[in-house]
């Protein structure tokens, strides 16, 4: 069972400052929990995501698949002339446009849920439940080979930067 060191903060700006200080000291910040999205975290923790690319792929595949469906139904399987328009017609664009968005969004949401191992009714596994209320938490992984000098260093940096509490937690949350 892995344990994590949790620095609990009251203020967003203190968290930002603390991350800088910790990284200057060569301490790796594993995660940050916050009641609302902090955009700066993205660059500070060097996070990356392939989700936008997945959305692009879903959209492209969805658009082509929609065209194939429309082409097969209205040109190959059941060719029906209406309004003097050609069979392979411009009005496909509207349905393609809408279904591309739908397929892109739905599959992106599904991908996100699967990757995060989320499902309806899942119980939240949070290292500190107060992060959904008004507290910010910096998570630092506690390695087994960390000696007491390193631990005191981490704790002193957390206290210096304004942590109101320092806890340890062995909640195995999904990052």
């Amino acid at each position: 069972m892995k344990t994590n060191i949790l620095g609990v903060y009251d203020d967003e700006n203190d968290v930002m400052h603390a991350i800088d200080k910790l990284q200057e000291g060569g301490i790796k910040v594993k995660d940050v929990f916050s009641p609302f999205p902090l955009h700066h975290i993205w660059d500070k923790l060097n996070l990356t995501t392939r989700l936008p690319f997945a959305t692009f792929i879903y959209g492209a595949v969805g658009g082509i698949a929609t065209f194939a469906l429309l082409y097969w139904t209205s040109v190959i399987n059941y060719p029906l002339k209406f309004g003097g328009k050609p069979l392979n017609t411009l009005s496909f664009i509207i349905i393609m446009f809408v279904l591309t968005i739908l397929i892109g969004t739905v599959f992106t949401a599904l991908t996100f849920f699967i990757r995060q191992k989320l499902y309806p009714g899942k119980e939240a596994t949070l290292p500190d439940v107060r992060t959904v209320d008004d507290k910010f938490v910096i998570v630092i992984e506690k390695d087994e080979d960390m000696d007491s000098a390193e631990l005191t260093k981490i704790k002193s940096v957390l206290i210096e930067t304004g942590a109101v509490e320092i806890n340890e937690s062995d909640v195995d949350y999904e990052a």
Partner: protein
Amino acid sequence: MDKKVQLSGKFKIAMIILIVVGLISVAIGFITEDGKRAWANLLLNNYYFLSIALGATFWLAIQYVTQSGWSTAYIRVPMAMSNYFIISFALFAIMFLGVHDLYHWSHPEAVALDPVLQHKAPYLNIPFFAIRFFIFFVLWIFLTWRIKKLSLQEDKIGGTELFKKLEMTSKIFIFVFAVSFSLFTIDWLMSLDAHWYSTIYVVKKFIMAFFHGASVITAIVIILNKLGYFPMLTKKHLHDFSRYIWALSLIWGYMWLSQYILIWYANIPEETVYYIPREMGEYKALFYTELIMNWTFPFFFLMWNRIAKSANWLLFTVSVLIIGQWVELYMSIMPNTIDSHGISFVEVGTFIGSMGLFALIVGISLSKIPSVPMKHPYLIESTTHDH
């Protein structure tokens, strides 16, 4: 950081040369052709730069109404662009000499024979046309003058009181702009063919003004940054600018399709008359060029993250869009006005001259006011913008 933009003598001379080239080409247009072509080109270019100035002011108003923080450092650029209204007012006033060359409905003898024009005569007549024109410009000039006055006052006093006033003025401007620019577009562009109308025409031109106004702001900010102003400009700001361009290119394409596909689908002769010379006649190549330049190219190009954050690639995109807007207006105006199509010295020269005039006015206006609003409440949020 709060230094004013210094205009070099070379820039002024270069712009004056461009204006002279423009004047010569207009004169050549009047001498060698029947006048229609020169008037059509003047209408195109006057409308072009008016819409850019209006779109930029709309962009500015949006920043105030949404209380955007990231853009605060750059709001003096659209403020300087809004100074063009006074020049545009004079240029459009001259256009009244050419009303009979451009607008079929302005001939009483044509109206007498035409029941459709008679029906529209209470709205489309020269006195009312002139009154509307005058009211629109007075409103635009007054509101932008007030925004600029309050913002310059803010430089001395600071505080949030003036910001609230600016936000209120911006709200009024957005409302006034939406109504007045739509009617202005109906008056000057759509009534070129007074028999034809489209309800989405003005929406498309509205989006065009916003789209290209935002693009030109981006270009001016990047150029000034390269000359040493706006030291706070980062990749994050560029990304936000390119998001504006990218999203607006999508809306523009949506409006283009909305207008085209409804007319194509209904296939009513009174409506398709607009698209037949444009799509099937001699304007065929430009018809697709317009769509590719204004939608396909920026949409797929700025989708790449690396390009959306690069100043040079953004400048390249904007330069394509500047020509793209010209093509769009050419496609709106020319098939209804000039007899022989084609792009000649008159077209190029008039555009170059108008561009020189616009750049000179914006440059002089920028050099008169501090380039950054130093006491704006959101300035720190803008200079430290990092997400």
